[in-house]
C-alpha cells in the first residue's frame, strides 16, 4: 500500500508524517510520532482513552484516520501541561487523588479541557454527561468529577 504524506501541527509544532491510508490517527501518534499519552483502550470509539482535539474539536483518535488531519492542529495530553507548569485540571486531578491506575487520565484531561473551553461553568450533571465517553474503571468517577469542577472554578478565578 502506498503511503500518504501528511503535514499537520501537533501540540503547536509542525509535523510531517507518512501513513497508510487505513492507519488511525491514534496509531500515527503512538507509533510514528512517539506520543504515547493517548491510549488505546478499545479501538472502537467507546472508551475515550485515545481522546485528542483536532482544531479544538474533541475526538476519539482511534476513529480518525491519520490521513484526515492534513492541515489541522492537533492537541494531545502531552501539549496540555508540563511537570513545572501543570494545567489546573492536571493539578486538581492530582490533588483530589482522582486517578488510581491512571490509564484513563490522559483522555480525561483532554476531554475535560475541551469541556471547560466551551462551558467554563458546567454543572455536575453536565460534567458527568460530557465525560460519559471516558471510561474509568478504577475510581467510580467521584473524585474525577470533583477535580474537574474545582479546576473549573479556579479557571473562572473563583477561590477553589
Amino acid at each position: 500500500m502506498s503511503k500518504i504524506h501528511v503535514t499537520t501541527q501537533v501540540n503547536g509544532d509542525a509535523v510531517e508524517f507518512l501513513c497508510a491510508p487505513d492507519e488511525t490517527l491514534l496509531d500515527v501518534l503512538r507509533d510514528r510520532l512517539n506520543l504515547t499519552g493517548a491510549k488505546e483502550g478499545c479501538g472502537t470509539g467507546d472508551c475515550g482513552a485515545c481522546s485528542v482535539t483536532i482544531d479544538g474539536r474533541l475526538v476519539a483518535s482511534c476513529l480518525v484516520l491519520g490521513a484526515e488531519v492534513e492541515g489541522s492542529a492537533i492537541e494531545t495530553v502531552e501539549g496540555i501541561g508540563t511537570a513545572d507548569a501543570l494545567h489546573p485540571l492536571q493539578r486538581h486531578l492530582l490533588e483530589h487523588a482522582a486517578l488510581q491506575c491512571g490509564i484513563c487520565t490522559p483522555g480525561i484531561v483532554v476531554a475535560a479541557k475541551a469541556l471547560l473551553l466551551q462551558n467554563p461553568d458546567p454543572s455536575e450533571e453536565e460534567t458527568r454527561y460530557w465525560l460519559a465517553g471516558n471510561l474509568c474503571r478504577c475510581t467510580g468517577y467521584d473524585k474525577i468529577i470533583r477535580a474537574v469542577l474545582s479546576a473549573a472554578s479556579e479557571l473562572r478565578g473563583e477561590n477553589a
Partner: protein
Amino acid sequence: MKQDFKILGTRPIRPDGLDKVTGKAMFGADKSVTGMLHARILRSPHAHAEIVSINTAKAEALAGVKAVITGDDFADVENSATRYTMQNCMAQGRALYDGHAVAAVAAVSKAVAAEALKLIEVEYKTLPHVTDVDEAMLPGAPVLHEGVKARTLGDDVSGNTVGYYSFGHGDLETGFSEADEVIERTFKTAAVHQGYIEPHACLADLGGDGRGELWCSTQGHYMVREVCSEILHIDASQLRVTASEIGGGFGGKTTVFIEPVALKLSQKAGKPVKLVMSRDEVFRASGPTMSSSIDIKIGMTKAGKITGAHAKLRYQGGAFPYEMVMMGAMSAFAAYDLEHVQAEGWDVMTNRPKMISYRAPGAPMAVYAVESVVDELCQKLGLDPIDTRLLNAAREGTKSSYGPTFKAIGLVEALEAAKAHPHYSAPLAPNTGRGISCGFWFNFGGQVSVSMAINADGTVSLIEGNPDIGGSRASISMMAAEALGIEFDRVRTIVGDTASVGFSDVTDGSRVTFAVGIATIKAANAAIKEMCKRAAKIWDIDAEAVEWVDGAAQPTGHNAGDFPPMSLAEIAATSGKTGGPIAGHHEGAPDKAGVSFGVHMVDVEVDPETGFTSIKRYTAFQDVGKAIHPAYVEGQIQGGAAQGIGWALNEEYIYGEDGRLQNPGFLDYRIPVASDLPMIEAVIIEVPNPGHPFGVRGCGETSIVPPLAAVANGVAHAIGVRMFALPMSPPKILKVL
C-alpha cells in the same frame, strides 16, 4: 491500640501522579524498541473444536512475516497448573472456547501481521459445547477435560465438576425448625469482566541462548517470570521481567495470557516482539469472573434472629480446572454469627474463557444471594434491615461460618455508622427504593521483599517487588517515612524488576499495603538499628545506649551520654567514613492480614416506562483498620462500589446457542460511565487490625461485595417485585413490571 501518626492518615500527592496526568507514564503498550516486530494472535471461532490441522505455509511465505507459531511449538511442562496456563495461552489439539488462541504471527508491522493471520488455514472439527453452569454439571454434558473431577463427587454430576467444598457447623434441620419463617430462593448471576481499560500488552525479547527481557502489564512480574520460564524451559534467572505501569487489573492480571506467546515468537524470529490485545480479545480470551447459579435457604425468628442458613453455590469458571467457589462459600455467611450454617460450593468447567480473579473473587455473587434473602425475610417479617443485621452480626469472638474465630472486626461499627447516617433516614421519592447489604473479604499476606537504601544526602530509596495498581508507591513511601521519622518527600519508592529485588507474590487480595507495609517497617527498623550503631560509634558509647526518636538517634538517657540528637541526614552524610553505605532490607511472608467488612446503602429509582435503574444516592461504610492515605482508601471504596453497581445492573457475558460471545466490546458490554453514577460517599471506619503494627487491613476488595445485593434490594423495594438474576438490565426489569 490507638496510635499517633505524623504521616499516616494525611493525603500527600502521589509521586507517580505527575507522569500520569502529563501522559509520560509508560504502560504496557507504550514501550517500543528499534527493530521490534508486531504480533497478532489467531483465535478460534468455535466454542469447542478439535484442531485437525493448521497450515501456516502461506502465512510464513508472506513478505514481512518473521515467525508463525502454533500449540506445537510449546513443549510439554511437568506442572499441570502451568500446562493449563500454557494451553490457555495457545491451544494444543482442541480449541476450548470462542476466542481461544490457535496460532500467532510476528511480522514487521501490525498490518502485515493482520494480513498473515488471514493466510493461516485451520481445519476444525466442531465438538459439542456447554456454556451454562447447571447444564455443564449434568451427567452427559460435554466434558472439557477428563480425569479432573473432584475426588469426593459421585455420578450425579459430570466430570466438569472439578471442585467441591463445604463449610459450616451446627445442624441445619435443627436450625430451620427453630425458625418462624424460612425462605428458599435460587439466583443466577452472569459472568462479568474486570474491565480494566488497559488491554494486556507486552514486549518480549528472548535470545536463542535463553536470556530474555520481558516488559509487561501485570499484577505480579515474579509470577510472570516463574510461569514463562517454566513454559519456555529457561532458567528463571535468565528472564528479567519488568512491570510496566499497569492500567488496571482487579485480579485479571494475576496470570499470563500473551507473554509466553510473545516470548516464543521472539525466540523463533530472533527479534523483540510486541504483542497487544485488542479489546475484543480482552473480552473473549482473558479471564472474566465466574457466572453462578445459587440456592439459598435461610430461617429467621419473628424477632429477626437467623436460626439456620444454607447456601449451595455452583460456579462456572471456564475451560480449565480452577478453584474459586471455596472463596464464595467461605464469604457467603461471614457477616453473621450463626449456630447452624452450611455453605457448599461446586467449581465447574465450561466452554468459556478460563476465569481469573476479580476483586474479592467468588464473594460478590454469594453475598448477593444471601443478602437478598435476608432482605426478603426482613420485608416479610416487618423488620428493620440494619437492626436485623446488627442482631446477627459477627463480632470479636464469633466462630465464623468458615471456621476460624474472629479477632477484632468492624462489622458492628460499620452497621452502626450506617444506621446513624442521615442517608438512612432521608425520605424516599416515588419509584425509589433503598437497599442495604453487608460485605466481607479476607485479605492476605504472602511473600514480599523490600530493599531500602539511606542515601548520603539524607534521602531514602526504596525498591519493592509489587506492581503499583492504585497508589501503593505513595502509601509505601508514607509508611517508610513514618517508620524512619522523616518527611514523606524524602522517600522515593520504585517497583523493581525481577533482577533488582527479591521475590514478591502477585498483587492480589489487597495485600500490598499490608504485606509490603510490614516489610517496609522491618526494613526501616534494620536501617534504624544500623544508624543507631553509627551514632554510637561517633559518640563512642554502647550501641544499646542509643535509641531512635523522631527521625534521629539520641542517647537513651543522661547516663548513656550527653549528646544532641543526630538526625538521619547527619548520620547519612558521614556514612562513607563510619562504615560504608547504610541500608535495610526485609524478605518475609507476613500473615495475619485481617478481614474487612463493609456495609453499603443505596437509593435507586426505577423508571416504570423504560425499566432503567438510576442510582440516586450511594453511601459505603467500610472498616479498613487504619487508612494510610484516606483519599486512596475512599477511591478504592468508590471504585469497588461502581464495579459492583455495573455487575448488578448491566454487565454480562452473553453467549448464543453457538457458544460464541455476543458482546465482546464496551458498546455492548456496558460498564458504568460517569453519567450513570452519583457521588459515592465513602465512610471510613478504623478498627485496627491487631496483626499489623499500624493496624492496617487490606481495603481494596471488600467494596465490590455489597453493591450487588444493595442495588438488588433497592430495586425490589422500588418496584415491589424481587428479581432473582443479575444483571437487572432495563429489558429484564420491564419484563417483571
